[in-house]
C-alpha cells in the first residue's frame, strides 16, 4: 500500500521581515509620546526660534518683518541683558547652594529616630506646598520696612536702630529674595535626600562601624557616594527651575530697584508682556535655552552623570 505523503501548505511570505515588523511595532508604541512631545516641546521651541528672526512688536503690526539676526545683535549690546544674566547666576548659585545645604541638614535630621518625626517631616514640606506667588506676598509683607514683621522683631531685640529697606535697597534686594527662595526650596532637597537616605541599607553602616569608620568617614565614604545620583539629578533640576523661576522676583520687586534683582526670566517676561516685543523676548528665550542646554551637558559631564560610583 502506497503511503501518502503529507505536504505542508506553503505559507505566504510576509511583506516585512520579522525584525522590521518588531521595529515598526516599537515605533508605533512610541508614536503617541513623540507626537505629544513634538507638539508641546519641539514645535514651541522651533516657533520661538522663528519669532526671534522677526521684528515682532504687537503694538507695531505694520513693522512686522524678517530681520535675520538683528535681535541677536541687539541682545549682545543690551547692557540690561548682561546685568540680568549675571544676576541670574547669583540668584541660581545663591539659592541652590543654600537650599542644598539646608535640605541636606534637614534630611539628616529627619532620618534620625525621634518622637514626633512624622509631624516634623510634614511641617518641613509646608514651604514647598505653598504656591510661589503666595510665598512672595507673605515675604514681601515680612520685609516691608515700615510695618513689616522682620524690622519690628529686629528692633525689639535691639539688633536694629534704623529701619532696613530689605527690598528697596539695591545691595540687599538680591540677598532678600534669595533668602525667600531658600526658605521655599529647602523642603525639596530635604525630601529628595531623605528618600535617598532611607534607601541605603543599614547593613552597610553596620559593616562600616565594625571596620572602625567614624561618623564623618561613614558620611564621606558611604552616605555621599550612595546619594550621588539623587544629588546630581535634584541639583540639576533645581538649577534649571531656579534659572527659569520668575514668579517670586516678579511679585516681590518686579526686577527692581534699579534692575538689582532683574534676572533673565523676569527680563524676558517684561519684554514680552510690558513692551509686547515678542521678537526680542523670543531671542532671549532661545539664548537662555542654549545656556541651559550647555550647562546641563557640562554639569552631567563634570558630575559623571547619574551612574552610582563603583
Amino acid at each position, binding site marked *: 500500500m502506497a503511503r501518502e505523503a503529507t505536504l505542508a501548505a506553503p505559507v505566504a511570505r510576509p511583506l516585512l521581515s520579522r525584525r522590521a515588523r518588531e521595529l515598526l511595532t516599537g515605533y508605533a508604541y512610541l508614536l503617541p509620546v513623540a507626537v505629544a512631545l513634538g507638539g508641546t516641546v519641539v514645535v514651541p521651541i522651533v516657533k520661538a526660534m522663528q519669532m526671534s528672526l522677526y521684528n515682532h512688536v*504687537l503694538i507695531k503690526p505694520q513693522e512686522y518683518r524678517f530681520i535675520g539676526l538683528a535681535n541677536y545683535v541687539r541682545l549682545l549690546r543690551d547692557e*540690561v541683558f548682561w546685568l540680568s544674566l549675571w544676576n541670574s547666576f547669583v540668584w541660581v548659585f545663591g539659592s541652590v547652594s543654600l537650599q542644598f545645604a539646608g535640605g541636606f541638614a534637614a534630611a539628616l535630621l529627619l532620618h534620625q529616630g525621634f518622637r514626633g518625626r512624622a509631624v516634623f517631616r510634614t511641617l518641613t514640606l509646608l514651604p514647598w506646598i505653598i504656591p510661589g506667588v503666595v510665598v512672595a506676598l507673605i515675604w514681601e509683607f515680612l520685609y516691608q520696612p515700615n510695618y513689616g514683621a522682620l524690622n519690628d522683631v529686629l528692633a525689639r531685640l535691639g539688633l536694629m536702630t534704623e529701619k532696613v529697606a530689605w*527690598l528697596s535697597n539695591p545691595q540687599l534686594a538680591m540677598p532678600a529674595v534669595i533668602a525667600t527662595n531658600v526658605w521655599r526650596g529647602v523642603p525639596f532637597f530635604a525630601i529628595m535626600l531623605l528618600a535617598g537616605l532611607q534607601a541605603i541599607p543599614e547593613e552597610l553602616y553596620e559593616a562600616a562601624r565594625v571596620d572602625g569608620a567614624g561618623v564623618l568617614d561613614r558620611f564621606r565614604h558611604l552616605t555621599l557616594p550612595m546619594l550621588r545620583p539623587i544629588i546630581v539629578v535634584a541639583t540639576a533640576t533645581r538649577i534649571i527651575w531656579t534659572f527659569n523661576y520668575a514668579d517670586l522676583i516678579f511679585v516681590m520687586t*518686579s526686577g527692581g*530697584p534699579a534692575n538689582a534683582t532683574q534676572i533673565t526670566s523676569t527680563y524676558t517676561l517684561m519684554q514680552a508682556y*510690558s*513692551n509686547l516685543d515678542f521678537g526680542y523676548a523670543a531671542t532671549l528665550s532661545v539664548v537662555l535655552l542654549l545656556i541651559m542646554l550647555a550647562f546641563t551637558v557640562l554639569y552631567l559631564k563634570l558630575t559623571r552623570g547619574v551612574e552610582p560610583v563603583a
Partner: protein
Amino acid sequence: MNDRLRCSRRQVLKSMLAAGALTAAEYAWWDEPLVSPRRAWGATPVRFQFSVPEPKRNALVESLVQRFNQSQKDFEARVEFVPQAQARQKLITSITAGSPPDVAQVWDNWVGEFEGMSALEDLTPRVKDWSGYKDVIPLAWETVTVKGKILSFPWVVTNDGVYWRTDRTREYGVKAPRDDWTFDEFLAYTKAMTKPDRNQYGFGMRGQGTWAVLYATEFMYANGAQVLKDGKVAINSPQAAEALDWYLDLFRKHKVCPPSVPTDGWRGIVEGFGRGVTNAYIHNSGSAEEQKDFVKPENFATVPLPIGPAKKRVSFYFSETLTAFKGGKNREGAWKFMSWAMEPEPHYMYSKGLGLLPARKTVAERPEFTKDPALAGFVKSFPFSIVSPYLAYAGWGGKLDSEGVPLFQQALVGKLTSREFLDKFAEVLTKNMS
C-alpha cells in the same frame, strides 16, 4: 370664613417679607445688580472689557451694565473683567488675534498705541453729533484725540494733587499747606511732618511704575523744564536736572520719605498714607474714596502741587476712557453703550462711586465734587492742568515703564546723577518717537 382662604400669622409675615424684599430689590439696583436681571431675548450682545483694580468697581460696573440692559431692548452688554495689570496686554493680544471686545475701559495713554495698530474706530462724526459733546471738558477731548480724530469717550478725568493729613498737621502745630504753596514750603512741611520715632514720614514718594517718572516730571515742569521743545526731546535740560535733584533729595538727603520708596508703586503710596506711615503723597483723585475708609474723611484733604522756582506748576491730566474697536462684532451696540454711560446719571454714579472727576461739566459742577475737601485739590488744579506730554508718542507708552522707571530708580538710589538719568532717559524717548 372659608378655612382655605384664611392666612396664618406666619403666612402673612412671610408674604410681607417677600413683598418688602422685592420692593427693596427694585430700588437698590445700584448696590444689588443681580436682583432682577432683564431677560434680553433676541438682544445682540455687546462685549465690554473692564479692568478691575478693586472690588468696589466690580460691583459698580455690574450695576451700570445691568442698568443699561434694562434701559433698552436691542443690546445686552456683557462685562468681561480682567485684572488691571493685564488689561493692556489682553487688549493688544485680542486685537492682534482679531477678536477685540466691542468696547473697553482704556486709559488714554493706551489710545495712541491702539491707534498705531489701526484698531480704533474714528468716533469724530458721531461724537460731534452727540447731544453731550459740548458739555464735556475740552481738555478731556484732547486726551483722546490723536491726529485730529476723536477715538474714545473720556469717561472720567484725573489730575494730580497732594493728599495731606489734616489731623496730624493740627496735632504737630505745623502750618497747613496753602493752595499756592511753593517748593520751599513743601519741603518745610514734609520735614515738619517727619517723625521717625513714630514711624511717620512727611512724604510718600512713588518709586515704581510709570507715574514715578510722571510725578517727578511735574516738579521739573514747575522749574521751567519741558519734555518736548520744538519737536525735540528736551527733558535733559539744566532746569529739569535742577528740579529733579531737588525732588530726589527729599528721599536721598532730607529723609522725609520712607525707606521703601524705590519699590513703592501705586499700592505702596496709597497704603503708606492709609496706614499712617506717610503724612502726604501725590496721586490723582482715584484714591480719595479709599482714604475716606482708611483715615476717615475728616482727617485728610487735598491741595494742588506746589509752585516751583520758575513760578510755574502743572498737573498732568489723564482720562479713563470708553473705547470702541474696529474689529468689534457689535459696533452699533458699542456706541449705544458708550453714549449711554456718558449720560448724566450713570456718569455721575460711576464718578461719584469711585471718587473720580466726571468729564461732563454739568456733572462735575455738582456740590458732591466741588465741595468735597478730598477732591478740592484736584478741582483747584484744573486751571493749570495740561495733557501729559508723554502722550505725544505712542512708542513712549510701554518704554516709560520698562526703561524709564529702572533708570529713575538708579537716580533715586544714587547710582546715577540726575543729569545722567535725564540724558539716558532722553535717549530712550528720542529712540521711540513713533
